[in-house]
């Protein structure tokens, strides 16, 4: 516990120290050292907690009324701290090399440490006030990081969208706490959870779902995510996607431990999970911007995690312990693995942006030759996120499938029906993910350069690609060691199913066996690949191996412009009668006319359906309704103070009268 407090303090100090004007190099050194130090301090207690399943509490009286300054490290908290302390230092190291020229006085490091420290305290805190303060520190720091490049209009727009979404979400969370704590003795979580039963559960859950769901990016509350992630510097995108949105998941899980749950809740979670997953990956497929694609893929993965939580709850409700364990375990493993692979993908996308100045896939291509390491690590990330064995992304989804198949065989319709929905959703997501990421990898890294910028790309800075290699190694290792990761997760699952870690381990033994055999399959796969490589070497050893132009079916001079683009790759899918109504793509077409046609062009775009059709019109309506209030805005400080004084007096008079 002392080490964890030290980690939080290190973040605070490093953030403040980075504000002192120095050379860029020194500022970066302070920033990175702080993040690495905090990571090193934070990891041992977190790992110890996950191994022992112990609960540690630290409470001191503090000056805030109703409660104490209390932080608690239980397995659930520890599990969400794990990606934070892993990805935080790596992303900082990457960030130091990523924008060496820009940093220094713009406060990037200050806010980065604010984000990291805020997230750590959010997870640890077990007092409402502390939680809300940490939550706000996290959210506001992220806002300043998103708007770092505020000279661009798109970035300002993204920052606005994010700020509105995150604050509306925070308001709902506050509302949740107020409702839950109505009759509680203090604002400490322990008292809150004891008293949460006195408020109708559906109301509490609605508030919690809206608040935490907005942070996590559950559809239809996801609309800020594809705006904010591409706008932020890439290492920040990696942190936001890899760690920050998981805070919403953490909040949901924490709430589930308090509130007496109605029986329809698993259904809702599974429905929203499937909807978020399928719709998220559909939008990812339709994107032309690499970072937007990755952001939508994060939405998809949040969907899978939500689905897993729903499956776990379903098992808990129906007293099917294996399904409960597999569901929760799948969700949690996916949280961990997604933080690895999505950070990796965002960092690799950052290298692309760094090298070419664009993330528009239609202007990229052929980068695998210019930046082989970034390309290979991106491939590892893509394979993981498509849940292909033996890489890490497979195992979370595998557990959910296993839970689903077990549920099908229980002959309880209330288990089998939602679980078959889950199975179908996962299968659809799997196919769509493969389509999205073959597109992302194939268009960006393979083929020929589609623009001069891509032509003159260069490999990333050593600090950047070494971080990416570490993360890629993490993806592989977490895949090969998946049976051991299962042990790691069992205390958390025990907490969520209110049983003991030992019981959960026994319960999950068959799953673990399955995992070992899957690893065996993976090993066999690697062996088969190795022997086939050997075989080809053998056959080609004495034969001619030549290089020539691509065979283009008889056409003599294939050019880069003739290649399939990101738009054309996805076009048959997003314009198919099946998917079109869900995406509402827009097409601008200037078709060739006449005998001697002039330049023709076609472009498609797929704006976010929720943002364009629901959120923005709604906000516009609200703004229109509020126009009369403009009278009160006169730009005179005195007048504003007059309003405050008037309010104050009115309140006093009300109290006095």
């Amino acid at each position, binding site marked *: 516990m002392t080490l964890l407090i030290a980690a939080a303090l290190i973040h605070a100090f490093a953030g403040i120290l980075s504000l002192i004007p120095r050379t860029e190099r020194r500022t970066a050194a302070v920033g990175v050292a702080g993040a690495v130090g905090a990571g090193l301090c934070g990891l041992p207690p977190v790992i110890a907690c996950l191994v022992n399943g112990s609960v540690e509490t630290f409470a001191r009286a503090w*000056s805030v009324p109703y409660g104490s300054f209390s932080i608690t490290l239980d397995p659930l908290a520890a599990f969400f701290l794990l990606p934070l302390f892993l990805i935080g230092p790596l992303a900082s190291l990457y960030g130091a090399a990523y924008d060496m020229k820009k940093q220094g006085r713009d406060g990037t490091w200050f806010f980065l440490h604010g984000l990291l420290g805020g997230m750590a305290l959010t997870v640890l805190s077990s007092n409402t006030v502390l939680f809300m303060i940490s939550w706000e520190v996290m959210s506001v720091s992220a806002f300043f990081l998103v708007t770092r490049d505020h000279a661009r209009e798109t970035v300002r727009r993204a920052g606005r969208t994010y700020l509105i979404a995150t604050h509306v979400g925070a308001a709902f969370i506050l509302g949740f706490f107020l409702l839950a704590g109505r009759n509680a003795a203090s604002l400490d979580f322990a008292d809150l959870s004891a008293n949460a039963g006195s408020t109708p559960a559906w109301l509490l859950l609605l508030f919690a779902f809206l608040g935490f769901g907005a942070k996590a990016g559950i559809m239809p509350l996801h609309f800020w995510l594809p705006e904010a992630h591409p706008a932020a510097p890439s290492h920040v995108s990696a942190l936001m996607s890899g760690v920050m949105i998981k805070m919403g998941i953490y909040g949901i899980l924490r709430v589930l431990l308090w509130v007496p749950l109605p029986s329809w809740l698993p259904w809702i979670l599974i429905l929203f999970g499937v909807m978020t997953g399928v719709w998220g990956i559909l939008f990812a497929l339709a994107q032309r911007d690499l970072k937007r694609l990755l952001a939508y893929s994060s939405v998809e993965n949040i969907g899978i995690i939500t689905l897993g939580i729903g499956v776990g709850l379903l098992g808990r409700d129906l007293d099917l312990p294996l399904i409960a364990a597999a569901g929760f375990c799948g969700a949690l493993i996916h949280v961990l693995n997604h933080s690895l692979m999505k950070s990796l993908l965002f960092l690799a996308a950052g290298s692309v942006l760094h090298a070419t100045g664009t993330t528009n896939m239609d202007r990229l291509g052929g980068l695998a030759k210019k930046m082989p390491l970034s390309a290979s690590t991106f491939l590892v990330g893509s394979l993981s996120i498509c849940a292909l064995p033996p890489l890490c992304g497979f195992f979370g989804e595998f557990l959910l499938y296993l839970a689903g198949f077990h549920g099908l065989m229980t002959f309880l319709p209330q288990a089998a029906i939602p679980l078959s929905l889950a199975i179908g959703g996962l299968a659809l997501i799997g196919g769509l993910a493969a389509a999205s990421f073959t597109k992302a990898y194939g268009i960006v890294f393979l083929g020929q350069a589609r623009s001069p910028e891509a032509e003159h790309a260069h490999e990333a800075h050593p600090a950047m690609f070494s971080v990416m290699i570490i993360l890629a190694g993490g993806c592989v290792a977490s895949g090969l060691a998946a049976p051991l990761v299962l042990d790691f997760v069992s205390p958390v699952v025990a907490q969520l199913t209110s049983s003991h870690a030992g019981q959960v381990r026994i319960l999950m033994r068959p799953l673990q066996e399955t995992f070992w055999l899957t690893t065996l399959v993976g090993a066999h796969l690697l062996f088969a690949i190795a022997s086939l490589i050997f075989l080809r070497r053998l056959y080609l050893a004495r034969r001619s191996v030549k290089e020539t132009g691509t065979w283009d079916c008889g056409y003599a001079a294939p050019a880069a412009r003739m290649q399939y683009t990101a738009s054309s790759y996805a076009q048959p899918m997003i314009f198919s009668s099946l998917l079109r109504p869900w995406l509402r793509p827009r097409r601008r077409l200037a078709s060739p006319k006449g005998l001697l046609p002039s330049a023709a062009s076609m472009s498609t775009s797929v704006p976010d359906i929720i943002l364009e059709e629901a959120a923005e019109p709604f906000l516009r309506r609200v703004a*229109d309704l509020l126009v009369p209030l403009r009278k009160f805005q*006169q730009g*005179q*400080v005195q007048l504003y103070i*007059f309003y405050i*004084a008037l309010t104050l007096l009115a309140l*006093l008079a009300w109290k006095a009268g």
Partner: protein
Amino acid sequence: MKSGFDTVMIFLVLSNLALLGSSRLGMCVRALALQGLVLSVLPVIVDMADITARDLTLGLGTMLVKGFLFPWILLRTLRDAGVRREIEPYVGYTMSLIIGAALLALALWLDRRLPLPHSFVSPLLVPVSFFTIFCGLFILLSRKKAITQVIGYLVLENGIYSFGMALAHEEPFLVEMGMLLDIFAAVFVMGIAIFHIHREFEHMDTARMTLLKDDYSG
């Protein structure tokens, strides 16, 4: 002891009235300094039987910051920027004094009506604090110059501070929040003094901020 405390309270009231009634900026700043010094005595005499190191630190810090540092910064700003010494109020000085008296009456009335924790030290503490807060608000409302805005803000803050004294032993948090506000005020003063105003002080009239008004056409 009680009479000593009441004297302090009276000083506070008088300094407030001086702030409302004076036409010169320099005079205002001096009144503010007096107020700061008066306040710095409060934490020490609020509970004479039990003077802790904490009380002493608080008193000393208050004296340094409110009694000397802020007035010094304000006076220096006045001198450096060559600002005109008149206050330029929206509401005249006599009228201000009358309103001040009305505010005092309001504060006393509120003190009777509100279920407030009455200090054992002096029944005057709470109403005078209210009065100081109202005066601060009124100065903020009725004066044009940026520097009078700062003064108004500091007066408001002084009121909160002395109100906190009434609760000092029950809720140390409020007092500490008061200190936090002090720090904020310092930043406020520095910000105004050093950055923006210095450059364009001749024009430093808060009325000009109407330029910042949004032009919104639906």
